[in-house]
């Protein structure tokens, strides 16, 4: 098998919380708990989970914007957190990010040329102004905007167009990996469809690899080839999109999928929800124990490992 483009190996990330007392040791919040993932060339990997589960922390670490407490990320076989800063900076052209809020992520005082060409300036590409402008104009037409839009400012564009500008900015350095952190959640459904279609066309054209982070399960199912479900900093289920959405094994994934409101009014939800047995949660127990309807005594004292075969992994003792 080919070497993966990105290999995330045993990532732990702890954040220090404020001290309650002066001489106390600062309490620690563990945002990520032993994450292992592999992203392959030209595929899309989805990361799903509720707010606060560590999705965005993972994105920041993959982008080398934040250092993990332990573990590391290999990009094309190179250890991102064990290389000279200058080399990392040079490598950054290969991975770019598209952010969530198209209103907050574009500088309102810069014109589109300045915004889209900024990565080129930061990476000190030796380009004349004309060359730069030509390259920006080319990328703008790629994302469905006009080449003449370079002199306009962000406020002249709608939300969907702004997100296209953000995609253009990410693409200008010709990266191989794009991390999309909730990139379509702020858009209206009809515009969201346009942007998703665009992202998939670009993927085909440039053989891009996407790391697609979203809380919207239907979007993730639509876009990705592989999915990992994260709960409280741990991967609880991982597999190909088809198997995971068709036959979710972890109770948390099942809960998530069941909670998506169905657009067919005939499929009313059943009222009776499964009863959740009461177990006391300890540091040792499965993180999902207090919300799980399948919890047994085993789950109290042991946290399940991520195991499975055929690439469908699940961290649950009672998975079925």
């Amino acid at each position, binding site marked *: 098998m080919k070497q993966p483009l990105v290999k995330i190996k045993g990532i732990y990330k702890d954040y220090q919380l404020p001290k309650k007392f002066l001489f106390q040791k600062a309490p620690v919040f563990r945002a990520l708990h032993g994450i292992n993932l592999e992203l392959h060339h030209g595929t899309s990997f989805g990361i799903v989970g509720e707010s606060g589960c560590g999705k965005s922390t993972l994105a920041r670490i993959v982008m080398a914007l934040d250092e993990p407490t332990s573990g590391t990320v290999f990009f094309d076989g190179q250890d991102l957190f064990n290389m000279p800063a200058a080399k990392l900076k040079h490598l950054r052209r290969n991975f770019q990010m598209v952010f969530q809020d198209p209103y907050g992520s574009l500088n309102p005082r810069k014109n589109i040329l300045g915004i889209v060409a900024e990565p080129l300036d930061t990476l000190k590409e030796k380009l004349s102004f004309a060359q730069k402008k030509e390259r920006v104009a080319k990328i703008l037409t790629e994302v469905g905007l006009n080449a003449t839009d370079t002199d306009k400012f962000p406020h002249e564009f*709608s939300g969907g167009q702004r997100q296209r500008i953000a995609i253009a900015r990410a693409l200008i350095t010709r990266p191989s990996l794009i991390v999309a952190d909730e990139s379509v959640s702020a858009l209206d459904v*009809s515009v*969201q469809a346009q942007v*998703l*279609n665009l992202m998939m066309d670009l993927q085909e054209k440039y053989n891009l690899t996407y790391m697609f982070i979203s809380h919207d399960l239907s979007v993730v199912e639509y876009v990705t080839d592989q999915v990992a479900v994260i709960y409280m900093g741990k991967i609880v289920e991982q597999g190909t999109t088809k198997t995971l*959405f*068709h036959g979710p094994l972890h109770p948390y994934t099942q809960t998530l999928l069941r909670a998506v409101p169905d*657009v067919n*009014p*005939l499929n009313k939800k059943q009222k009776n929800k499964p009863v959740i047995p009461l177990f006391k949660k300890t540091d040792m127990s499965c993180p999902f124990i207090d919300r799980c309807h399948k919890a047994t005594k085993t789950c109290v004292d042991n946290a399940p490992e991520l195991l499975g075969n055929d690439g469908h992994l699940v961290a649950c003792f009672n998975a079925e």
Partner: protein
Amino acid sequence: MALLQVQDLCVTLNTAHGPQEVISHINFSMEAGDKMGIVGESGCGKSITALALMSLLPRDSQTRGKIILEGRDILKLNSNKICSIRGNRIGMIFQEPMTALNPVKQIGAQVSESIYLHLKLTRKQTLERVSELMDKVGLPVSKFGLNLYPHQLSGGQRQRVMIAMAIACNPEILIADEPTTALDVTVQEQILDLIRDLADSSGMALIIISHDLGVIAQTAENVMVMYTGQSVEMGSTMDVFQNMSHPYTYGLFSAIPHVGSSVQLDRKRLNSIPGQVPELHLRPRGCNFADRCSRALKICKDKEPMATRVADHHQVWCYHPLTCEDKK
């Protein structure tokens, strides 16, 4: 007689491009216990409709038409009288629980505010009423206490506080404006269940506003689809979702990826609606959707369409509504 009748409601707001009509000719009526959904993209006038019902529009706006609540047109009432209706007879849950609550007031005080104002209870009775409400919305006082501040609660819990505030005076009508947009799916499910149960048990009429077709399908019995301040399709949720006739409704529906899609079909492009919602001052003369519509003919660009009946209680504002064959 209907509980609430909205007749020919038009709202004009002052914008940078002069006065613009943001809502035109909205009609609907509701009985006690009805659940109506309003669905549409951002900027289509969903929230302005809700604010008009609450008489919370900006002062320099003009409203025409009638909003008849139990025989009285609330648009003709003076501000004192409206004050006795707002929050008392009509309750509203606002969109963002993060910003709609006052960050420097304890949640108990925020919930009791409208009780003080409208019900004129004693201190002790008010406290009892507040704890009863907090039990109802799933934040029992024994566990959560009334002296908490909003920042000490999670998004879902804040939304529960908002719901407690909205139903504090047992309103006849509850308006929920995007009540779950900022929440995770699992929390969304809990909040929707709560709103539905509250409406069912007290016989409140519910107006639920959302851009999420799934939320509307699961909550509302009737639905109004809005586009650029106009209703484009209206009817029972069953009719509209099973037999959608307006190209816009159909476009919205086919633009969303459905859970389960990866199993049925292999990587098909999403059907997006071309173009974008026209800006207020650039709205076309005829049908507002004509520029984005694949079925538009000359008449669509010249003249606004009138309501056409598709079935009983199912209307569509379109010259060329979709038939069953078109959707295949």
